[in-house]
């Protein structure tokens, strides 16, 4: 890939300065390449499919971590996939033999097209834990930006690699990375449904709930410790809250009729839920600790799929009070309702960005269900995909990515996309139907 544009660097580069903001100052013309479909068979498990090229990607060289083959976790491959999934980086593969103690020839790396270099190692300690170390160098300025060491249990080696990717992401873009966060989703295999918690690359999956009945609408608590979801195990829709670490669970909404679409208030104290109670679906709030519901919407239509705004002041929701389902907004304390979506006659499944300014949702156009992005207050949404069966978008906690479900040949899969729709990756799939993704918060 040839770079044509002039790169303007900041005049003074403080090593202690937290952010670098490279994307704002340098532009790579990567447009000559139309796809960057990447799938490597390393050990057959980690398969990232990336399609699309972004306008601004920082080239980072990354060598395999010394001794990583000894511990059986492909640390560099995990970091590479994370960095590329973020859409902000293009990774140049380095040869084995480098580690954080190497004397590196940075001008040579720059000559190979890299603006930054990462090298590291993993060492098994006497107590059985592992020390993961790495350094990040600026190949343009010729100095070191980061040097880190993490001591972890063997079971946390993947997590350590994700944290390394997050640190590199933050150091070079200024935004926190999301690869040490978790995604919850539902997997259906035949007649069995499982609620999974995985890394955002789809790996490291653990089962929170296995059920013979459907599970839908998982929602993370703001502290990342609990999941609310709808389970049909009692032969009707009821809302449950489960502690992810302990497995302890209880029903929080089991009123007459259907109870569904849970969403947490930002202070973690309340859930907004959809209750039918003998009439059409309406929004109510319930205390997480249990108690009587407080009605929030009062219409004769279906009101459902509520989500709080990040500042807790509003609740976005879907209502068909105007005919077809559209996204509306109401003050969290109740009152006047404002309509938010105006394009198309069927708009559902809202997800609001962490800064409260962008709305991702699904629109039905001529029978196809597509992921759209709308700036709140604007009228023209932007389509993010060209697939036909998109569902359930969920923003990453740094606001730079959206995870969603879509149909691919062979089954339902989960994808992440950048907000410009240009870099998409598919999460590792097991061949069964993956649906209902929910991206967890920071601070795992």
């Amino acid at each position: 890939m040839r770079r044509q544009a002039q790169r303007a660097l900041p005049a003074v580069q403080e090593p202690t300065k937290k952010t670098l903001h490279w994307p704002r100052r340098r532009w790579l013309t990567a447009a000559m390449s139309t796809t960057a479909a990447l799938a490597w068979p390393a050990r057959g498990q980690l398969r990232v499919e990336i399609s699309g090229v972004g306008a601004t990607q920082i080239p980072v060289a990354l060598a395999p971590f010394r001794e990583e083959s000894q511990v059986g976790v492909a640390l560099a491959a995990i970091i590479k996939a994370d960095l590329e999934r973020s859409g902000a980086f293009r990774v140049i593969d380095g040869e084995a033999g480098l580690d954080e103690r190497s004397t590196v020839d940075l001008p040579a790396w720059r000559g190979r097209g890299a603006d930054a270099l990462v090298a590291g190692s993993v060492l098994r300690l006497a107590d059985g834990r592992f020390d993961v170390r790495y350094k990040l160098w600026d190949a343009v300025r010729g100095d070191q930006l980061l040097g880190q060491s993490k001591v972890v249990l063997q079971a946390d080696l993947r997590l350590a690699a994700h944290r390394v990717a997050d640190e590199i992401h933050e150091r070079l873009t200024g935004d926190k990375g999301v690869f040490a966060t978790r995604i919850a989703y539902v997997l259906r295999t035949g007649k069995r449904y499982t609620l999974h918690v995985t890394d955002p690359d789809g790996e490291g999956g653990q089962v929170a709930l296995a059920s013979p009945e459907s599970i839908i609408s998982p929602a993370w608590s703001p502290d990342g410790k609990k999941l609310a979801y709808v389970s049909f195990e009692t032969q009707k829709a009821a809302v449950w809250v489960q502690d992810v670490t302990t497995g302890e669970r209880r029903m929080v909404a089991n009123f007459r009729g259907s109870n569904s679409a849970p969403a947490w208030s930002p202070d973690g104290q309340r859930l907004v839920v959809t209750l039918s109670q003998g009439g059409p679906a309406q929004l109510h709030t319930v205390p997480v600790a249990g108690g009587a519901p407080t009605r929030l919407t009062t219409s004769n239509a279906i009101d459902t799929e509520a989500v709080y705004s990040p500042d807790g002041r509003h609740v976005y929701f879907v209502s068909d009070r105007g005919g077809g389902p559209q996204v509306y907004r109401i003050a969290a304390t109740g009152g006047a309702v404002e309509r938010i979506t105006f394009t198309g006659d069927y708009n559902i499944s809202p997800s609001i960005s962490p800064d409260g300014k962008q709305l991702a949702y699904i629109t039905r156009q001529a029978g196809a269900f597509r992921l759209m992005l709308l700036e709140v207050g604007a009228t023209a949404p932007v389509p993010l995909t060209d697939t036909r069966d998109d569902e359930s978008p969920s923003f990453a906690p740094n606001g730079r990515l959206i995870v969603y479900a879509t149909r691919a040949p062979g089954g339902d899969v989960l994808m992440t996309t950048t907000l410009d729709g240009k870099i998409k990756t598919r999460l590792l799939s097991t061949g069964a139907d993956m649906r209902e993704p929910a991206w967890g918060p920071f601070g795992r």
Partner: protein
Amino acid sequence: MKHFTFRTLSLVSMMAVLAACESPSKVAPTAAVPVETRSPVVSAAAAGGTSAGAATATGTPQSGVSTVNLTPRSGAGAGGAAAGSALMAAPTQRVVYFDFDSFVIKNEFQGLLDGHAKVLTRTSGKRMVIEGHTDERGGREYNLALGQKRAESVLKSLSLLGAPEAQLEAVSFGEERPAASGADETAWSRNRRAELKDR
């Protein structure tokens, strides 16, 4: 011996089918949880580490997840179906079908509802649940609410025909329990339904 067992088994499975009333037409594999495709982590000690002196670190990995395993309910509804139908000759028709995007109960189902309403009126202890469903097009939560509207519509009809509401509950499965798989109008029309079940 084999013959006797087979007959017992088929009798039991027939009762299970009557009780269940609907099953998706897919064949279910017996494995509960899909096998993850990760390769096992190679223990460093096994890979030729130095000697018996190497300790293994114990401790809880960060962010562990506990698994809750729910087993299928056994025999749910089997007793109710047998007892109810023997005594009261309840209508064998238990499914009301709907047009696309509609909750209107078509005339052809009035007789069915009338029959059930009479049984409910005569038997004060009889309880039923009405389960509403949609076809698979559209969002899950919105479809859950649409299915609920269908179930409520049937409940209102039964109530207008004299059935006490206290003996009834309307619930929804949205698109979660299709009666027919497929992405065509034949399958969709079979999924847009409300089912009446004994409790």
